[in-house]
């Protein structure tokens, strides 16, 4: 099979969770282009022609269960794209709801061998290795409610901890998932021009603004994050499992190595190397 063929999704069904806007919408469009049948779940209205839309509120377990039931059938890729910056329910919207959705789909045998799961984590999810022992406790919680209680009782219902959880979850599930023939990976984007970032433009897109200015590049476009996400879920990446791929145009690497010294402190802090 050629590389181009391995990237195709013909005859496959792709579920995009949080696909109404931003990176999720770009991923849904891209999956359609690659020949997939696409199901988009979102709290907001879905305006992607050719995709089946299912209403989903990740904050409520019953809504997730109902959405998975409505989807039904086989799913060859789940793209976990929903995420918020803060506010109530962040622990469910950014992590626990996705995990529950995956658990439900697994329980219903919706993910055949050869399928893949792709999460959108964040630069804030890096350095999770340092917090692994704590995060293992969260990952070991058996279900939705116990996970929510665990997070809330520890005051960890925030963006940083939930992105840490996503990375630790993806890495720690590589083995158990592949036993079922399923791969699981994540991307960790740097600043990306999404509605979430635009809502707090002067703050959110400040991350690495000096780096981009010196390089003469813009913040990442959603499609630039959708490409690696779809790649990781395609057969072209069949040898890749359990990784958290940094998709930040090299900001972290430039900081860690000191080739762009302005980023060094931030990179060391975020990557847990300080």
């Amino acid at each position, binding site marked *: 099979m050629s590389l181009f063929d391995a990237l195709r999704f013909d005859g496959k069904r792709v579920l995009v969770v949080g696909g109404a806007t931003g990176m999720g919408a770009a991923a849904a469009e891209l999956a359609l282009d690659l020949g997939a049948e696409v199901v988009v779940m979102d709290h907001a209205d879905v305006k992607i022609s050719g995709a089946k839309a299912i209403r989903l509120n990740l904050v409520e377990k019953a809504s997730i269960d109902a959405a998975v039931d409505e989807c039904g059938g086989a799913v060859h890729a789940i793209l976990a794209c929903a995420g918020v*910056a*803060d506010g109530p329910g962040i622990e469910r919207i950014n992590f626990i709801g996705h995990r529950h959705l995956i658990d439900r789909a697994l329980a219903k045998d919706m993910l055949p061998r050869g399928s893949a799961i792709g999460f959108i984590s964040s630069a*804030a999810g890096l350095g999770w290795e340092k917090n692994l022992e704590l995060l293992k406790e969260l990952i070991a919680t058996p279900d939705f409610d116990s996970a929510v209680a665990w997070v809330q009782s520890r005051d*960890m219902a*925030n*963006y*940083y*901890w939930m992105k840490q959880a996503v990375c630790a979850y993806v890495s720690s599930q590589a083995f158990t998932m592949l036993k079922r023939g399923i791969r699981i990976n994540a991307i960790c984007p740097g600043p990306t021009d999404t509605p979430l970032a635009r809502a*707090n433009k*002067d*703050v*959110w897109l*400040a*991350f690495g*603004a*000096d780096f981009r200015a010196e390089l003469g590049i813009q913040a990442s476009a959603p499609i630039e994050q959708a490409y690696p996400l779809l790649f990781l879920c395609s057969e072209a990446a069949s040898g890749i499992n359990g990784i958290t791929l940094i998709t930040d145009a090299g900001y972290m690497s430039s900081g860690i190595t000191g080739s762009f010294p*302005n980023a060094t*402190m*931030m990179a*060391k*802090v975020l990557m847990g190397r*300080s």
Partner: protein
Amino acid sequence: MPESRSVVITGASRGLGLASATHLYQQGWRVVAAMRSPDAGLERLRAATGAGADDPRLLGVRLDLDDPASIASAAKTIEEGVGAPDVLVHNAGIAAVGSVEDMPTAVWQQIFSTNLFGPIALTKALLPAMRAARRGRIVVISSQGGVRGMPSISAYSASKGALERWAEALSEEVAPFGLRVTILVTGTFKTDILTEQTTDYGDYAGPYAVHYAGIRRTGGYAVSHASPPERFARALARSLDERAPFARHAVGVDARMLLLGARLLPGWLLHHAIRLAMRLPRHGALG
């Protein structure tokens, strides 16, 4: 030609105030430049703007924020000169360097007087007219220290943090009268507050000597990478056209990064990041 909008800028004789007064004058604003010593400051302003001594769009007002009588008389002069101002920019501020232990208590009084109590008094004096005019904006210039307390500038940080909280409260109170409040959190700009203007109380042979050495290295780097004040002035000008009754913006990459960090990182990690940024020894490393 429509009448020029009026803006009062405190601390307009140097730094961000001077750059802002110059830029807004060039944008066609009627500028009331408030400062301790208008004679010298106005000369700099006229040189920067090319305004003549009798230019009605550039007024100098003597203002000592530590002196209630000076504040009252400045408010009177402002109202006689431009009526209720369209914009009041609380830019004047002082800083001092030194650990909590090294900083004399009297310095706290001084900093809070200039950075907080003075601006409150001036606002109170001008509010009745601004409220009656049913339009106007109060702009508060905060800094990274107002977002997150910074080592060696605790008094300055506390005063800016208090000023921000005051401005938030004020914004709720005056919004029903059609007034607006804007907080601008500044990053590092090339002004005197970074260097000779700021008194240093640090005991460089004392227990905090290691702190000072680290902070000085960081400070030196920040100064060498600081942005020109004109960039701040342009951001201020843009913020004056916003419609929202309350806004808070960071100006400068470093300030924007700090706001992002303060929002997304847990407190312990932010503490750690600032320790690293300031090159301070790790927990328990000294004594």
